[in-house]
């Protein structure tokens, strides 16, 4: 994991806190505003570009096959005409592999995060809202899931169910569920006793209605900005699973599997392993920066 980041870190402000200062020049304010915008739009723009590259480009332009190539085109260097990121030893185009592998990464990242958010909220919100024994029971369940080495569970599930994209999604959800659950519980606790909640209760609103109308809208911004970090984390883990050979079945392309096969020829042709590694790194950096920028605007989870 990938080192899964503890919530505490994800929730510490990313940007430097604004220092209290009364005399700020006009220029400085403008510069601050500019960087604030840049911190949001640069990663967002990059992500949009990546999504476009992975999902729209292959439908518009005919790319070389990501699974087949001819050995005649094998071992093309970077920037070869027709294969601008080169080809691997059997002539499969690297850029196509990146595109199709990226599709898989984004799909799995989004699905795992969505599942984690929905089931995690279904556990965490009642736990935080109801308190008492329900909270104790649900929190212990989350604790067990968190204490369980996520990768082990994911690997065991992937091994047992066999490699496929859907199985990988379920395997990885095992760790996204408790993370979101704990966050949902903590944020529900934070809003539970605020005055507007008391007002809602006093005016006769009950149970589900309070949760749907009052709790969820208030904790949603925090959960959404956290979910971007979740997508990044999932993409990292997905890469690890593919790397270890328990992810997307061959011959389908995935970034982790590209890293694994590139590792064998690392000393002769480092680009095979570097290209997917860098795509993986930069994508996750963009997701994290975007999440940070959203938190800066929407406040803490």
């Amino acid at each position, binding site marked *: 994991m990938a080192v899964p980041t*503890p919530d*505490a*870190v994800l929730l*510490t402000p990313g940007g*430097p806190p604004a220092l209290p200062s009364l005399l700020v020049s006009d220029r400085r304010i403008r510069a601050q505003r500019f960087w604030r915008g840049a911190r949001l739009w640069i990663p967002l723009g990059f992500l949009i570009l990546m999504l476009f590259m992975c999902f729209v480009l292959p439908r518009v332009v005919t790319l070389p096959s990501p699974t087949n190539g001819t050995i005649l085109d094998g071992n093309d260097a970077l920037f070869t005409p027709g294969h601008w990121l080169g080809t691997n030893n059997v002539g499969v185009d690297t850029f196509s592999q990146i595109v199709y592998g990226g599709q898989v990464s984004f799909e799995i990242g989004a699905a795992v995060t969505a599942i984690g958010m929905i089931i995690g909220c279904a556990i965490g919100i009642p736990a935080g809202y109801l308190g008492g024994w329900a909270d104790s029971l649900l929190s212990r369940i989350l604790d067990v899931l968190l204490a369980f080495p996520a990768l082990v569970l994911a690997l065991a599930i992937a091994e047992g169910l066999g490699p496929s994209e859907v199985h990988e999604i379920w395997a990885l959800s095992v760790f996204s569920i408790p993370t979101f659950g704990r966050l949902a519980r903590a944020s529900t606790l934070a809003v539970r006793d605020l005055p507007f909640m008391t007002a809602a209760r006093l005016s006769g609103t009950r149970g589900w209605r309070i949760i749907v109308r009052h709790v969820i809208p208030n904790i949603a911004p925090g959960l959404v900005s956290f979910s971007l970090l979740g997508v990044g984390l999932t993409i*990292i883990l997905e890469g690890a699973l593919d790397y270890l050979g328990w992810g997307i079945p061959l011959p389908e392309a995935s970034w982790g599997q590209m890293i694994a096969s590139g590792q064998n020829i690392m000393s002769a042709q480092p680009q095979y392993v570097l290209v997917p590694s860098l795509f993986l790194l930069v994508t996750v950096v963009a997701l994290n920066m975007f999440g940070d920028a959203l938190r800066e605007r929407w406040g803490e989870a």
Partner: protein
Amino acid sequence: MARSPALRLVGRRLGAAVIVLWGVTLLTFIVMSTLPNDTAQTMLGLHATPAQVAALNKALGLNQPFWVRYWRWLVQALHGNLGTTLEGQSVNHELAIHLPVTLELLAYALVISVALAVVVAVLAARRPNGIADRISLSVSMIGLSASPLVVGIILVIVFAVQVGWFPVQSNGLGGGLGSFFVQGTLPAASLGFPLFAIYTRLLRADLVEQMQREDYIVTARAKGLSPWRVLIRHALRNSMFTLITVIGLNLGTLVSAAAIIEVLFSVPGVGSDLLTAIGNHDSALIEGIVFVFALITVAGNLAADLLYAVLDPRIRHGSTNS
């Protein structure tokens, strides 16, 4: 009987830890038994007759109902015996060989990352928004986003393939301190870099907050202490508590990362052992390793909780009221 609140806290946390540990063993068992059970088939090979498979299943006790097997395992585990692997070795023995390797690697990674994080965070917190702060924030953003796998690959390409300072694969960490550093530095650095990012971010945020908010900082400044001294002797001391907590909380997740790094560098630790065990459907070994991982996680969390409560008087006060 008037018991001290600290003792009561210890008792409560210990109870919760035991429950969580038990839950983990149960969950492992549930996962392992819902998966297709072809242990016997795997051991005997493709040409085994159904009768042979059934006989081996019986010999291994795999034909027993779930609760019977779980109960037997639990009783044995409580006696300190984690069972036997498919190859017929005791799981305890397997762990005794591989666990120290992983622990050494983790310890090395922790030492590197904490030491660097403290230095960088102090430099960054000295002038928030200054140049050191901005650099440290950017580097830690990369570290937070980098998986150990990617860090490992890049380190290998740079330091093993191009420069040649370290071996590409480290087979074993034994053989003296010098060999340990040669073999262990790249794996430890791959594990440590993401940790360094986490710790730096956290410590910096905490230091900045203390420097801006806490009264004792004002007092120390009013006494005329130099800014560095205030930062290091006063703020850092308090911020270390936060760091200790996170290190403890993080231990469990670290073991998963160690597994990947061990495969990448072919370090013979429990992580790579675990992956082999999963490939072989070696339930006893998987259960044993997961149990130890969970034990480390829970012990780390517990230690963090308790240390925090014992070291920081504000927390102790809080827990008396709750």
